């Protein structure tokens, strides 16, 4: 029994890898395309395709006749240590993919360090103040800053950093990846927004830690505030560690746009190029290694979480489940943001979002176009206003789905061991998007499904971490001794302790859902290319960030205002 249970994770991991390999091997069938034709187009663009050439290429590549056979053939090679031969380059797969994973791992760890430092910097002042004064409020102001930071698009931040730090000041190299100096700008671009999200997530952990009885006890003993803050930080960091591990894994495959901007030869771009070129051996190798690495790092996160909680966890001594104290200062910023957003949208609706005006290319803000014009001379105010409903609606729907799934999976999880969530998290979102597009067809719905398919993972892991802590608390043990059923414990005791912080975390991700959908637009997923959806507007404007900053300020401000408004939901909920 115990042996079987110990084997289970290995078996499920193996099954997941086999399944993913089959799915990737099946892509040509899902797309109903001929991999030989795609490989030919990749080697020779604009060549045209003739049957004789295709036959010759098919014979040379020895293409599989069905997905299962192709996947098993490749896996058979993997068992003997051979990751296969690329169909496009005809060279061995292993060196390129391993080097790309090394590069991405370096970048992801650096970005995670930036994120952790940023989150700490955002939370430390409030936490120290709270430790001194003894309130459970870890600082609303910093929460707002964190929300805004979390809503900044990575790629826009990267473009600004390159323009200012590398091009204008010449302090750091703009592109390349041949030494640690090349790491700084991409790590900042990826790490700062992630730090904002992390801080949002941690602020709830800090607050609940501050409200725990032992803090009061320590304070009554006259323990120094610094020591209390350290203790609180350790409790909060325990919750954060699995998220940081998740962040590292997620960044491995998802940083495609930032990788390209900085010329970083990472595994995200490698996997995307391979799938687009239907170079299946490379795609399979990249995805398999990412998943194994993701499972490994996810497992490390869980282990560190346990280590930080220490013996308290196994002894059922954790004082979790303390309800947050109500009241506190109401913040006015979210109301102002909501008002501004509503006013801008309503006032902009009568304007024409699609009229191309030739003389107005990249026109700066003026009386006729108060927010400026984009590269085609279209009125940005009109575009932001008309895109608002589409953007906010889709993003909220995606986030709500992620939240529900994340809570169900996280609270329902029997163990804190790595599972399906870690497998999905390790997959590059664009690859997931391509698979969804192959099955569901292009369009906004497909993009929303693709973003939701990976978007629930951080929430599930967060819920899983909190649920593990809640289950380790004394009163849950009491409930167990009293004979309560696992379902009842989950519903009555675990869920209430988990739902608040995870919801807050989920809301902070609303702008990210909009950005995630936009990131798939070039694959033909997402809103129509000429639609005023904010992500699409932002993607169109990235090339003009320096010449015409207003083209990017308009949609980015919309996303930031959305983030602030979303903070409002949380404020009213906890203060009612």
């Amino acid at each position: 029994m115990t042996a079987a249970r110990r084997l289970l994770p290995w078996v499920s991991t193996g099954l997941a890898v086999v399944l993913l390999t089959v799915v990737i091997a099946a892509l040509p069938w899902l797309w109903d395309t001929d991999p030989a034709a795609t490989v030919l187009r990749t080697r020779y663009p604009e060549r045209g395709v003739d049957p004789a050439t295709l036959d010759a290429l098919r014979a040379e590549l020895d293409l599989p006749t069905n997905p299962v056979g192709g996947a098993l053939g490749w896996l058979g090679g993997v068992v003997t240590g051979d990751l296969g031969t690329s169909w496009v380059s005809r060279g061995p797969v292993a060196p390129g993919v391993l080097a790309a994973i090394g590069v991405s791992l370096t970048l992801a760890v650096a970005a995670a360090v930036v994120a952790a430092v940023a989150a700490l910097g955002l939370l430390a002042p409030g936490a120290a103040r709270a430790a001194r004064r003894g309130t459970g409020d870890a600082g609303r102001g910093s929460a707002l800053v964190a929300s805004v930071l979390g809503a900044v698009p990575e790629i826009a931040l990267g473009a600004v950093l390159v323009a200012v730090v590398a091009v204008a000041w010449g302090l750091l190299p703009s592109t390349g990846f041949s030494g640690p100096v090349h790491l700084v700008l991409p790590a900042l671009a990826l790490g700062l927004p992630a730090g904002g999200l992390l801080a949002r997530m941690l602020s709830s952990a800090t607050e609940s830690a501050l409200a725990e009885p032992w803090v009061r006890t320590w304070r009554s003993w006259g323990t120094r505030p610094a020591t209390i803050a350290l203790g609180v930080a350790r409790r909060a960091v325990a919750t954060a560690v699995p998220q940081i591990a998740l962040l590292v894994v997620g960044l491995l495959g998802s940083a495609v746009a930032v990788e390209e901007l900085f010329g970083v030869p990472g595994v995200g771009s490698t996997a995307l190029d391979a799938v687009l070129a239907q170079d299946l051996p490379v795609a399979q190798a990249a995805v398999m290694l990412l998943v194994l690495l993701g499972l490994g790092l996810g497992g490390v996160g869980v282990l560190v979480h346990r280590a930080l909680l220490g013996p308290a966890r196994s002894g059922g001594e954790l004082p979790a489940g303390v309800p947050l104290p109500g009241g506190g200062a109401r913040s006015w910023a979210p109301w102002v943001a909501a008002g501004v957003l509503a006013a801008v949208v309503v006032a902009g609706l009568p304007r024409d979002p699609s009229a191309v005006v030739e003389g107005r290319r990249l026109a700066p803000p003026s009386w006729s176009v108060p927010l400026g014009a984009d590269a085609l001379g279209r009125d940005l105010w009109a575009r932001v206003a008309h895109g608002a409903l589409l953007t906010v609606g889709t993003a909220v729907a995606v986030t709500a789905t992620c939240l529900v799934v994340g809570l169900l999976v996280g609270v329902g999880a029997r163990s804190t061991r790595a599972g399906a969530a870690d497998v999905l998290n390790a997959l590059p979102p664009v690859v997931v998007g391509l698979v969804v597009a192959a099955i569901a067809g292009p369009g906004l719905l497909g993009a929303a499904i693709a973003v939701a398919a990976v978007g629930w993972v951080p929430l599930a892991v967060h819920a899983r971490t909190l649920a593990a802590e809640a289950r380790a608390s004394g009163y849950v043990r009491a409930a167990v001794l009293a004979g309560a059923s696992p379902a009842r414990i989950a519903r009555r005791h675990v869920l209430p302790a988990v739902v608040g912080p995870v919801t807050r975390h989920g809301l902070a991700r609303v702008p990210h859902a909009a950005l995630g959908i936009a990131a798939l637009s070039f694959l033909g997923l997402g809103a129509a290319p000429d639609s005023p959806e904010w992500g699409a507007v932002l993607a169109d404007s990235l090339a003009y960030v320096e010449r015409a900053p207003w083209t990017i300020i308009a949609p980015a401000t919309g996303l930031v205002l959305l983030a602030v408004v979303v903070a409002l939901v949380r404020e009213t909920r906890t203060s009612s």
Partner: protein
Amino acid sequence: MTRRLAVVLAVLGLALTGCFSGSGGGDPADGRLRVGLSFPPTSGLSPYGNEATLATRLGVTEPLVVLEGGTPTPALATAWAQVAPTQWRFTVRPGVTFHDGTPLTPDAVVGSLTRAAAATPTPRALASLAGTGPALTARVDGPDGVVVTTPAPDPVLPQRLASPELVILAPGAYADPTRPSPVRAGTGPFVLTRVDGSTGAALDANPTSWRGPVAAPGIDARFLADGVARANGLRAGELDVAEAIPVSQVAAIAPPQQVVGVPLPRSVAVYLDQRSPVFADPGVRAAARTAIGTVDVAGTIYEGRADAAAGLFGPATPWAGAPGARPPHPVTPPTPPAGQRIRLATYSDRAELPEIAAADADALRRAGFTVDVTVLESSAFEARLGTGAFDAVIISRSQQLDTGDPVGYLASDFSCAGSYNQARYCDPATDARLATGAATSDVEARRRAALEVESRVLGADAVVPHVTERARVGVGAGVTGVAEDPNEQFLITGSTRR
């Protein structure tokens, strides 16, 4: 706890100092050229495939002949002549050594050409010659000659042999016959010493280049897929030459850096699918042409850095623009559209195309059409081309990919059996004119045929040209001698220096 923390820190430290890729930028003072190229190679600059041009652009490999203004001029061959209807004899340049020290001999030339003709797939320039057997056979003829035999008479064989895929490499380059390696195997002014996967390459000056002394001591090449990244590298002074600067970035590049525009034989045009339900009607096609014609693509989207199209052929092919060269074509009167739905598509790899699609869609909507726009990544886009998935597509298309021969280009794009016929245009009279053009070796006659066919497809509203493009090469402060090659085969030469 402390030990655990130490382990975590050690892992972090290892990861942060661990994996970097490629060589450093090099010392800017040593005179080596830092070049940013636009697409990352996957096969170590193998001559079989698209990355063959990377090796010629960096001055590593050379073909037998080089095209100048569409006319073959000597390179590794000093002279050539058609000795029989299906045979051409090339005289191999004496005194040339490969980068590995071995001499260039007729044997080496025969070896390179024979292997290229047998490659899978057949190199693009030879594809139309390949029938059931090999596209060509080559044999040594005397101490300095090579005779090339084609299955059928081929008036443009020298043009074909100018292809970057048919470069001559040292025999040692063919250790792996599926992907020959040009590392220390070319004849050009620069010796390729190392290729770092798809990130970069290192080259040294060739001290024994047959073209004479080489100005720069070497090249550090980097492959940057993102156009904004190349522009940033140039502006930050990290690159001396950056190819294919996107239009959106040109305005940000100020002296001493500059962007050199070279007219290219490459047209950006809207292809109207002749078999689509909407565009089967010539009047509706004319209405679409009238609507699209109102969009000033060259002036606005290209900001004047492309040439407004008079036809498919532009300033890179000056013979097309000579007065009276273009025969006039009939103009179909437009039928006013009544809300017909058009599926307009393009691809995202060239940043300007999605903008053109949005502008065209707006113009078509104003004219009375209903327009759905699709923008796809290029391989997904190409996979759907010719399947009837779209009514109109916007494509940037090179006219000299194969042979520099206008008739070959038109035959692939506008003949009934054309391999790249995106308008699905099929007119037996046009096919007949293409056939007579292809049969003659007289350059003038071929050009006349090309212009007649151009006027026929324009008259049929199969294609609505927007612009002909220019190469936008970013050149850093004090850099001189960058090749301005309309065929995009050469970039860095022996005289490029900084």
